[in-house]
């Protein structure tokens, strides 16, 4: 459709939404380019679904505007926006068979019968549901229903495809399969997609850019690489799996990073923002970036409290001198109660100003 081709960028301009006195969304500003796959990532209640519903027109914003190029769309009714949406519970019409479900949006657009039949057939082939076209949704498995929902959303060739936690009702194996499927369909159609999820793995594997949301705010927008390696704040780092945290005082700061004194140890990490000497800071790192090593000035002593075999090694927990719980990997089995010294990978540990400092 002409409408699909003609947009360049989608802009959220200070969109906000409050329910009574509660702010579900505060001044969300965001620009999405044509063809991008954007994931809205965050814990439940962070405002990601609210954002999607406002974009779809299912929920009015209480402030701000949404612009598709120079056209303001947040005042339009959902049926006037022409987006495709995949709902969390699929929301397939139970009284229509697969073909009619998929063709529904085309019928609403007064597309000719023959054209509907042709495009519906194409969409069915795209989601690999040949042979199921005349079944009712109730006769399909969860994964097949999911495919119908996707086909129904994309067959209208919308400028924007919205997906609201589309994989959350599937079991683990099917989730992986459908993830690849969504990626494949996005690649073959190139439709701009906005994908809401609370699963960081899903977001990292699917998205071109990820928007991390917490408590109604956008905390960081970046590529999966960026987000995985360089979270902008302590909250985002924690959400992205930086599980260990150690607090101390900055003793030295340079272009590449900073050193922080934690107890007797002097540890290095990459600073997300310049940190002044003497400031309190929190050093965070992933489980994989902390491992036992011979003791020296840059290791943290800990007592092993538990260990789990993970095939290629062990994931252990330990208690540091200050009582902080640390998670680390070890190639060998460690006895509970054993004293170890843990070395941090200085290139992968991140330093942030300490909470409340």
């Amino acid at each position, binding site marked *: 459709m002409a409408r699909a081709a003609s947009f360049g960028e989608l802009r959220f301009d200070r969109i906000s939404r409050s329910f009574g006195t509660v702010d579900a969304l505060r001044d969300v500003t965001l620009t999405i380019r044509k063809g991008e796959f954007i994931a809205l990532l965050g814990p439940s209640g962070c405002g990601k679904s609210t954002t999607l519903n406002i974009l779809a027109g299912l929920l009015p914003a209480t402030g701000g505007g949404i612009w598709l190029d120079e056209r303001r769309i947040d005042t339009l009714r959902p*049926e006037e926006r022409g987006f495709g949406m995949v709902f969390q519970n699929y*929301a397939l019409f139970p009284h229509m068979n697969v073909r009619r479900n998929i063709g*529904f949006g085309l019928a609403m657009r007064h597309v000719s019968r023959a054209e509907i039949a042709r495009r519906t057939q194409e969409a069915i082939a795209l989601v690999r549901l040949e042979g199921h076209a005349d079944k009712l949704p*109730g006769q399909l498995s969860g994964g097949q229903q999911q495919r119908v929902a996707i086909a129904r959303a994309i067959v209208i060739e919308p400028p924007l495809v919205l997906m609201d936690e589309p994989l959350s009702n599937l079991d683990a194996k099917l989730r992986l399969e459908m993830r690849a499927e969504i990626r494949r369909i996005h690649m073959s159609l190139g439709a701009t997609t906005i994908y809401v999820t609370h699963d960081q793995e899903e977001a990292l594997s699917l998205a071109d850019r990820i928007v991390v949301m917490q408590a109604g705010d956008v905390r960081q927008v970046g590529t999966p690489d960026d987000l995985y390696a360089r979270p902008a704040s302590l909250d985002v780092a924690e959400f992205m799996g930086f599980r260990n945290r150690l607090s101390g005082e900055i003793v030295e700061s340079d272009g590449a990073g900073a050193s922080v004194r934690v107890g007797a140890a002097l540890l290095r990490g990459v600073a997300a923002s310049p940190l002044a000497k003497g400031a309190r800071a929190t050093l965070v790192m992933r489980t994989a970036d902390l491992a036992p090593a011979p003791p020296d000035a840059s290791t943290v002593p800990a007592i092993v409290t538990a260990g789990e075999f993970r095939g290629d090694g062990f994931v252990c927990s330990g208690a540091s001198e200050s009582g902080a719980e640390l998670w680390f990997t070890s190639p060998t089995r460690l006895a509970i109660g054993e004293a170890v010294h843990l070395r941090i990978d200085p290139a992968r540990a991140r330093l942030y100003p300490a909470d409340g400092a």
Partner: protein
Amino acid sequence: MAIASSTRAPFDRVTLLAAPAVLILCALFLYPFVYGLWLSFAPAAGGALANYHKFFADPFLYGTIATTLWLALPVTILNLVLAVPVAMRVRLMHSQRLLTTILVLPITLGVVLIAQGLLTYLGPQGWFNRALMTLGLVSHPVRLVHDYWGVFLSLFITGFPFTFLLTLSHVSGIDPALEQAAATLGANARQRFFRVILPLLAPGLAIAFCLSFVQAFSVFPSAILLGAPAGPTRVISIAAYQAAFEDFDYSMASAIAMIMGGVQLAIIAAVLGLRGLAYRGPAGGGKG
């Protein structure tokens, strides 16, 4: 284990717990019904079908069917036609309790009380006619009681809440995401209603129609108290009652009761047949 093995057994002690209820219904419902059916073919005079011949030969008797239908069908259809849009709207309300409580009042108070209230309210001196005259809509009081319209309104005032509450429970059972999905696919409010909501609602509406129709068709006290029981509102219940308790012809009364049951069954079968027809085609999913 005792429980596991007893579920497999065709009959056990737990099943017998249903026996008293079954016995009571056999004795007080099934037996009288069968007895009534037999009695209707055993008239005081004439052959087995004499009662039925008499009924369908006498316009004073067979006319009651049309009279009753002429009341029951318009009221039921009106109730349903109004109940659907109101239920669609009320479903969006956060607190429905006050409204539903008010509406359940006429159902629980019953037709006799409503009839008595309407006698005064709709009467020539009642508030209804006064209000109409004050608003300048009429110059003389409208004759409503002891007429068709009195009975019609009483059936409406007790029947609408019933139909509405039934419809509301059906409408509330439809997943709101379906309507949202239709909207994102470009369907406007009309299309959403006729293409998505109505097909899903149709089976429920058929049931609501049947239950509401049965209530309206068996109109009895209000037809006597509010209507003109000798004329325009001589419904079939009245004919059956008169045969039994004024002529003491139980055989004839049973025959009329059977005819009454038969007519209702025919209408219900027709509606449910239509429902089945609508369902064999496109509709029929598991949602809702």
